C-alpha cells in the first residue's frame, strides 16, 4: 500500500502545505517535524517556481522569497533526505511542470522517490497531458495526484478512473488563497469520484478556519490548507514554527471531530 493511502486511515486527514525555503530550508525542515507532532497526516512541500500561475498572492510571495535566496531543486532534495532520517510522515511535492521537465522528468522522479517522497502534484498538468509524467511516476512508485475542479463535471469520472494516491478536489474557482465562503457542492464532486473508484478525496483552495475545515471534512476524506499557513511563515519569518504548530493542531482537531451535523447546502 502506498504511504499516501495510510495518511487517510486514521480518520479525516489534515494536509498542510508549505513552500520549501520560505523563510529558509532549515525552518522548512523544522516545520515538517512540528506539523507532524501537531497531527498533520500528510505534508505537501512546494518547490518554488518563478511563475506560479495557479497561486494567489500569498503563495506567489512565498515562491519569490524562496527563489530570491537561490533555493534550488537539488537543495530541496538534500533537505528531504535529512527529513527522512527523522520521520516517515507521508510527503508529496507540489510544483509546476517545468520544474520537473527541465530537471529531466525521469531524473526528477527517480531522485524524489529515492529521497523518500511519496507523491507529486502538478497543477498545470491536466488529465490530457499526464502521459508526460504518469508512466515515470508509476515506474518509480511515486503517486501523481490528480486534481478535479468545480468546472470538471463529467471529467471527474475519467480523471478518477485513472488516478493515483488521492484526488485533490479544488474547492473553488480561481487561484489559491483564503476565502470567506466556499459555495461549491464538494459533496457532489466527492460522490462522483467514489461512484467511479474508491480513492481518498482531499479538499483544498480557500480553506483557513477550523469551521471551514470541519465542514469540508464532513464531505471529504481530508482537508488541505496552504495560504493560511504560508501567511504565518510570512508574518513570523524564522520564528514561525510554534505559530504554525499551534494552527495545525487546531485545524487537525477541527477535521478530526466526529458527529458534526451534516453539511447544509
Amino acid at each position, binding site marked *: 500500500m502506498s504511504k499516501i493511502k495510510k495518511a487517510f486511515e486514521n480518520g479525516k486527514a489534515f494536509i498542510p502545505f508549505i513552500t520549501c525555503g520560505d523563510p529558509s530550508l532549515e525552518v522548512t525542515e523544522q516545520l515538517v517535524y512540528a506539523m507532524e507532532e501537531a497531527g498533520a497526516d500528510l505534508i505537501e512541500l512546494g518547490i518554488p*517556481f*518563478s511563475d506560479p500561475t495557479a497561486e494567489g498572492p500569498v503563495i506567489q510571495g512565498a515562491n519569490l522569497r524562496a*527563489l530570491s535566496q537561490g533555493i534550488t531543486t537539488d537543495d530541496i532534495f538534500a533537505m528531504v533526505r535529512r527529513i527522512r532520517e527523522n520521520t516517515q510522515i507521508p510527503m508529496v511535492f507540489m510544483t509546476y511542470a517545468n520544474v520537473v521537465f527541465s530537471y529531466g522528468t525521469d531524473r526528477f522522479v527517480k531522485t524524489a522517490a529515492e529521497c523518500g517522497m511519496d507523491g507529486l502534484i502538478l497543477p498545470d498538468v*491536466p488529465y*490530457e497531458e499526464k*502521459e*508526460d509524467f504518469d508512466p515515470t511516476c508509476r515506474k518509480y512508485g511515486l503517486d501523481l495526484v490528480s486534481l478535479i475542479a468545480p468546472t470538471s463535471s463529467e471529467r471527474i469520472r475519467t480523471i478518477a478512473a485513472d488516478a493515483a494516491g488521492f484526488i485533490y478536489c479544488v474547492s473553488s474557482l480561481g487561484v489559491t488563497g483564503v476565502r470567506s465562503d466556499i459555495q461549491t457542492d464538494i459533496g457532489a464532486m466527492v460522490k462522483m469520484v467514489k461512484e467511479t473508484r474508491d480513492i481518498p478525496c482531499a479538499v483544498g483552495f480557500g480553506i483557513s478556519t477550523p469551521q471551514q475545515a470541519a465542514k469540508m471534512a464532513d464531505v471529504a476524506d481530508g482537508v488541505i490548507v496552504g495560504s493560511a499557513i504560508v501567511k504565518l511563515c510570512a508574518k513570523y519569518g524564522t520564528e514561525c514554527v510554534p505559530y504554525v504548530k499551534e494552527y495545525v493542531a487546531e485545524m487537525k482537531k477541527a477535521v478530526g471531530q466526529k458527529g458534526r451535523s451534516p453539511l447544509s447546502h
Partner: protein
Amino acid sequence: MSKGRFGIHGGQYMPETLMNAVIELEDAYNYYKNDPEFNRELTELYNEYAGRPSRLTYAARMTEDLGGAKIYLKREDLNHTGSHKINNVLGQVLLAKKMGKTRVIAETGAGQHGVATATVAALMNMECEVFMGKEDTIRQALNVYRMKLLGTTVHPVETGTATLKDAVSEAMREWTSRIADTHYVLGSVMGPHPFPTIVRDFQAVISREIKQQMMEKEGRLPDVVMACVGGGSNAMGAFYHFIDDPGVQLIGCEAAGRGVNTKDTAATIATGKLGIFHGMKSYFCQDEYGQIAPVYSISAGLDYPGIGPEHANLYDTGRAQYVPVTDDEAVEAFEYLSRTEGIIPAIESAHAVAHAMKIAGNMGKDKIIVINISGRGDKDCAAIARYRGEEIYE
C-alpha cells in the same frame, strides 16, 4: 489524448479548472470556422472596420539604398488601431459573442493587443479588462490611456518582472476565477491549445494577402518573408500560407535586447531550451532548474521568454530560421525606415527591418524580400527619444 501538437510542441498544460473552457472554445471554433455567416461577418469587419486588405508597399528608396533585393513592406501598421493585433481580436471577440460571452479579458505587452481588444470590446458592447505589466504601463503610457478611453479597465501587474509574461500569468489567473461569462482573448500564437491554432488562423489573412498581392505586382512569390517574433503572431500570420512553398525563405527576428551573450535578452530560440509554461510545450528562456528567466528587450511587445509552439516546430524542422536582433540595431532600423520611406514602424517591427538591412545588400537585384510591418511606431516615439537621451513630453 494530448491535442494541439506541432511536432513535440504545444499541448494543453492548464489547470483542471480551465480544461472545460478550452474544450468548449475548441468545439465552438471548429463549428464557426466553417460557418458561412461567421466568415461573412468577419470578412466585413476586416474590410469595413479594420481597413483590410492592408497594402503591400514597394520600398523604392530602401531598395535603392541597400542596393540588393527588392523590398516590399506588408503594411499591418495601416490597420485600425495600428497593428496586426486587430485581425486576431476581431475573430476571437466575434467568436466569444457567438459563444454567449459578455466579458473579455486580455494580456498586453506593448499595449497593441490591449488596445485592439479594448476597441473591439467597445464595438461589440462587451465588458473588457486588460492586464499589463506595471513596467509596460510606464513604457507605453499612451496605450494605457487609449484603453481607458475605450472603456476598458487596465490592471497594472506588479508580480515578477512586471512585464508581458506576468501579464499573461495574471490574465490566466483571472480566467480561472471567472469563466462562465468570460473569454480570454489571448494575443499571440501561444498558450494552450486551441489558442495557437485560432490566433494563427485569424492572422493568416496576412500571408493570404501577401501571396495575392505579390502575384499581382510581380507575378511570382517572394524569396524571403520576414517578421519580428515575440510570441510570434504576426510572423505566424505572415509565414502561414508560404509554409508549403519551399522556395520562400521564412525568417523570424527575435529581440536580442543588449545581446544574446548578456542576460538582458529575450531571444528564445537563440538562448532558450525546451520547457513547459503558459499552457504549452515550447522553447523558453530559463535557468538550469526551469525557473523562467526575467528577459529584457527595448520592445515591450517582444519582451517575452517563450515562443509559440508552431514556431518552435518550424525551427525544429528547419522550415523557418530565427535570428537575433539587438536593441541598437532595432532603434537604428526604426530611424532608418522613418527617414527613408516615411514610415515609422513599431519598435517590434523594426527588428525585422534591421535584419532586412543586414541581408538585402548581399542578395541579387532579382530577389524579393517582404518585411511584415506589424505595427506603427507612434507609441514608441517617447521611448526611442529617451533611448537617444532626449526627454520629450507625450
